[in-house]
């Protein structure tokens, strides 16, 4: 094409670039998982042993550390997020671990331990909770009076098999008996990934 030739809009680089971007964008949108599926918006952390997995919304949740038995998740406090303090206890904390006891034995131990802690009261439980995959477990919600500040705790136990129990220790300033936390617990995956 010479300079004397009339410009052909359909062949101009900006138009071609825009069409390519539009085409790629349409492919991305059409291939994305459906927003109706809760898992489409969640990240998944799977234990190195492959026998359980935690599905979490990131952000605000983030993994702080992990090992063979479990991982520590956190939502930063407002002070941490604003950079005024570095480290410390987050607004929400979740520690996952594996204990060599049955669910019932571990819950008995947890209830006794909670009753022995000064300033700690049992708010709910022990009560049953079931994951979306049909795994039944037990949970206990406690509240610590301000020392130095009030914290809720929610301990959830699910059977892992071979006399092992998955233990989820939630610890937060807001009330942990909320729909969001309950849904996060019910989305825990137990057993090998399908």
């Amino acid at each position, binding site marked *: 094409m010479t300079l004397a030739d009339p410009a052909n809009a359909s062949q101009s680089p900006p138009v071609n670039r825009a069409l390519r971007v539009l085409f790629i964008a349409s492919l991305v949108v059409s291939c994305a998982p459906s927003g109706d599926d809760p898992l489409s918006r969640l990240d998944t952390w799977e234990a190195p042993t492959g026998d359980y997995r935690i599905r979490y*919304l990131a952000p605000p949740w983030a993994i702080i550390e992990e090992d063979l038995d479990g991982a520590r998740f956190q939502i930063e406090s407002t002070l941490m997020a604003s950079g005024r303090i570095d480290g410390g206890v987050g607004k929400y904390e979740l520690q996952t671990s594996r204990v060599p006891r049955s669910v019932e034995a571990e819950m008995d131990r947890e209830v006794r331990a909670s009753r022995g802690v000064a300033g700690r009261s049992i708010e709910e439980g022990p009560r049953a909770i079931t994951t979306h995959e049909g795994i039944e477990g037990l949970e206990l919600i406690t509240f610590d009076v301000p020392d130095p500040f009030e914290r809720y705790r929610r301990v959830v136990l699910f059977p892992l098999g071979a006399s092992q129990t998955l233990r989820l220790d939630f610890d937060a300033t807001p009330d942990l008996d909320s*729909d969001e936390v309950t849904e996060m617990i019910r989305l825990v995956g137990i057993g090998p990934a399908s």
Partner: protein
Amino acid sequence: MTRAVSILVALWLLPAAALAQPAALGLGRRLGDPARTAPTSSAEEEEEPSDDEGPWAGPQIQMSYAYSKLSDAYGGGDTHLAAFEVFVQWPLSELRTSVLAEAGGRDYALGGDDFVFRAGVGIGFQLTELIDPLVPHISVIATGGAVVGQRFDTSVVYGFGGAGLELGAELRVVRNLHLAASFSYLRLEMDGAAFDLFEVRVGFGL
């Protein structure tokens, strides 16, 4: 005595004559030709230039209420928005272009409601003459916006974007005042997930 009676009769007749005068005085009377009468009032109305004549060029601005369901994946997602749309007028009235802004609330099943903002542009075709005063249209919509909410007591913002198709119509009531209704399908991408959004909008405009 006769003179006094004459004056009383004249005073009694004067108001009736004054009331009757506008009808009796015609254009010719005013112009000095009593034989000619003024056109009737209905004829005067017919002769007045009317700005209702001709096909309607379509809407210029619209305010509307919109409902859609932007799924939150947990059974919520009912979204109620107030919308404001401005139309660009072209010499070719069948060409329909508009800029839209919507804001409102979205139900989040696991917590408090989210705030939703959406902006969009539409390019389409409208039938301004065929079944006037009803103006149907079809438009292609490109849109983007954000959902602002609280997740685990922490503020989060999710941007979204997408495109779709809108079908609708305006019914002109008087002058530019019109009622509007539309239905649109949008395919959106937000936070790595795709959403099929069906939106119904009703409103009015000028």
